[in-house]
């Protein structure tokens, strides 16, 4: 794994580098990254949403399961939670509990369909996306759910403490479930060698369904945060409009994967999400238009993918520049083995 310094450098170089660059650009422009009292809240909220989405995407993608229904699960679960809280009462605690539970059930159902139908997860998740968008549409009658008349339901998304707690709890929870439990051990063994794991008694279908359930629960929290911060749930479309949220997770996921070589991929997802949120604050501080923001974000993704695809070449160039000829620290065999495989299919 390398020395502590190497691991610390590999883990922190991207978030610290991003912060330094964005902060410098903002300062040169005479702006501040934290110009309003809500800046920290926005940073924490954006980090929480992106981190949870990245984790929900990555835990299935690590097993080769591309899940397009993440956004639809967030939408449907928050629609169910908000509808119950508004119609039955109980305020935010009921909304939160129902939303997260609904997310887990929706995720488990998605996993059940996948293992039962035995079709490509890409195809089945597209169907599930429409199904869940349709569910939300049916519940709301095709309209929006507005919390204008229910201010008690929006306090969660406006609390810095709550957002920070979500980040910490989710990070510890996902780390524990996937890195420190029997379930996680089975999950990783399926990734590294499905046939061997099944021969050893691991139930791949049950593991896949549970993984989908965790993914759904994480997206339930995302739906909860978004609903309570926007004060609005838009549930009137059945046209794959919810797919977009997963694209916000790609760059943090790749960044997390890179950081994971030096520490832990879950921590990497957090730091990747934090980096993207800092960039978002930078966009605002620099007063970039939405078109400029989209362009820069796309460029960052492309540049990072080019870097990942040409890492060895970049390494050789860097060593040449430094004039040294030492062999760079490679990821450990264990790390590499953990991240290869197909998992439950």
């Amino acid at each position, binding site marked *: 794994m390398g020395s502590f310094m190497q691991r610390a450098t590999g883990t922190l170089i991207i978030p610290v580098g991003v912060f330094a660059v964005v902060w410098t650009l903002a300062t040169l422009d005479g702006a501040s990254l934290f*110009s*309003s*009292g*809500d*800046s920290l809240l*926005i*940073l924490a*909220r*954006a980090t929480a949403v992106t981190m949870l989405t990245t984790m929900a995407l*990555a835990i299935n*993608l*690590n097993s080769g399961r*591309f899940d*397009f229904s993440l956004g639809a699960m967030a939408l449907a679960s928050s629609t169910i939670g908000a509808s119950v809280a508004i119609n039955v009462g109980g305020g935010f605690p009921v909304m939160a509990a129902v939303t997260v539970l609904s997310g887990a059930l929706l995720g488990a159902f998605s996993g059940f369909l996948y293992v039962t139908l035995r079709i490509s997860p*890409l195809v089945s998740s597209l169907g599930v996306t429409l199904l869940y968008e349709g569910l939300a549409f049916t519940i709301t009658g*095709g*309209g*929006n759910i*507005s919390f*204008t*008349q229910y*201010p008690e339901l*929006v306090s969660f998304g406006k609390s810095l403490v709550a957002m920070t707690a979500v980040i910490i709890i989710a990070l510890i929870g996902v780390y524990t479930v996937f890195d420190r439990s029997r379930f996680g051990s089975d999950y990783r063994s399926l990734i590294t060698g499905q046939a061997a794991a099944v021969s050893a008694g691991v139930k791949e279908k049950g593991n896949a369904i549970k993984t989908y359930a965790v993914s759904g629960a994480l997206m339930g929290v995302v739906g909860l945060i*978004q609903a309570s911060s*926007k*004060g*609005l749930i838009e*549930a*009137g*479309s*059945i*046209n*794959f*409009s919810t*797919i977009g949220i997963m*694209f*916000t997770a*790609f760059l943090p*996921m*790749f960044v*997390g994967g*890179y950081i994971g070589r030096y520490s832990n*991929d879950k921590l990497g997802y957090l730091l990747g999400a934090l980096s*993207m949120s800092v*960039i*978002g*604050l930078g*966009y*605002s501080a620099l*007063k970039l*238009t*939405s078109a400029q*923001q989209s362009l820069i974000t796309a460029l960052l993704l492309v540049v990072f*993918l080019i870097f*990942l*695809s040409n890492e060895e070449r970049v390494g050789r160039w860097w060593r040449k520049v430094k004039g040294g000829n030492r062999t760079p620290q490679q*990821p450990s065999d264990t*790390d*590499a083995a953990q*991240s290869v495989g197909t998992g439950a299919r």
Partner: protein
Amino acid sequence: MRITRNAVAGTAATVGMTLALAACSSSAGTEASGSAAADGGDAVETVKMCALVSDVTSSEALAFRDYYTDYIASEFPVEFVYSDELTDAEAEKTAMEGFIANNCQAVISFASADRPTQLDMAEDAGIYYAVATGALSAEEYETFKDYEYYVGAIGPDAMTEFQAGYDMAQYFIGEGDTSFGIFGGGIPYYLEMHINRAAGMLTALAEDGTTSYGGATEMGDILGKIYADGTIKIQDFESDVYELTGYLETWDFDAAWQASMAEMIAADPDAILAVGTGNAILGSAVDGTDIQIGDIDAYTEDNLVAMENGTLGFLAGKFTSINGPIFAATLSAVQGEPYRTEDGSAFALSQGYWTATSAEEFQEIVDADNVESPVYDVDTLSPFVATGATYDEFADFVGKYTFADLVG
């Protein structure tokens, strides 16, 4: 997760494919809404009328739809078929193809990404086409006004949109307000109505002698600058009297968008002038502050609550049954009596908004016009459906759209 070239390439390919899938699917289906339920309709042929819509979620869009499918379809021999939410020109084209294949006899369009293509397709297919709550540009009108199957357009024209923004800013100026934030909505997408409304706001502010936007003080110059920039640059706003403390656009809700919103709220302007969806997007954020929102939206329950609690200070809204006359004209055309201007062209008629600045005015409007009891009811519309009415009579009917005209 180990990142390999294959993983990177596979992900990039999948993202591309997904976007293509999403784009295609957005217009893949249509939903039949409403039914032919006219009294005694057994002997009358039911007209299949199809609606292209770019918005299916807002309260305004839902109210428009309910008016057609619940009220109109129960009073006239017509069946409505609605498209899915159409987000771009390609989606509109696909939906039009579906309508033509499904034997729609007329299309009422609420979608404006590519109206020329819609018009050409309708003309080629020989089905009537009408524009609701909108207008063609002057150039487009000159191009298409002689199309046989183009019925016409009724809705706020560019000047009406400009006036709505202007009136909003004037209202808050009249209240003594001097510091403003602006929510520009779809300006970066070159949404014409939003650009015109924002230009109206800035023009109202620029009537003060010390105030200008990028050096411009006149409507045309301000419009030109917004079109050139594709946004509003608050650093280009100069005034000794007024202050533009923040600007927000689009509906991204990402970190950058939220930070810009927080900055605009933190600047504590007297009012935020929104080109649309102001209360829905910003209502929760300004709750508990003294900031008032000016909005151009719809007469919904949420907006009423916001006006009651003081969050919403000004609302210009299309009333629920505003699309009654364009329906009447389209049905009349299908039944053989299209309205044409004196020179034989399709019509282009303007209608504006009803305005409320208090909860009492708001309630008065809601009581006067709703799906169950619209101002454009069957008795009002029937005289203009294939009854021999002239264009001038129809234009006069459409032109009397104000609250005072219709409600008294």
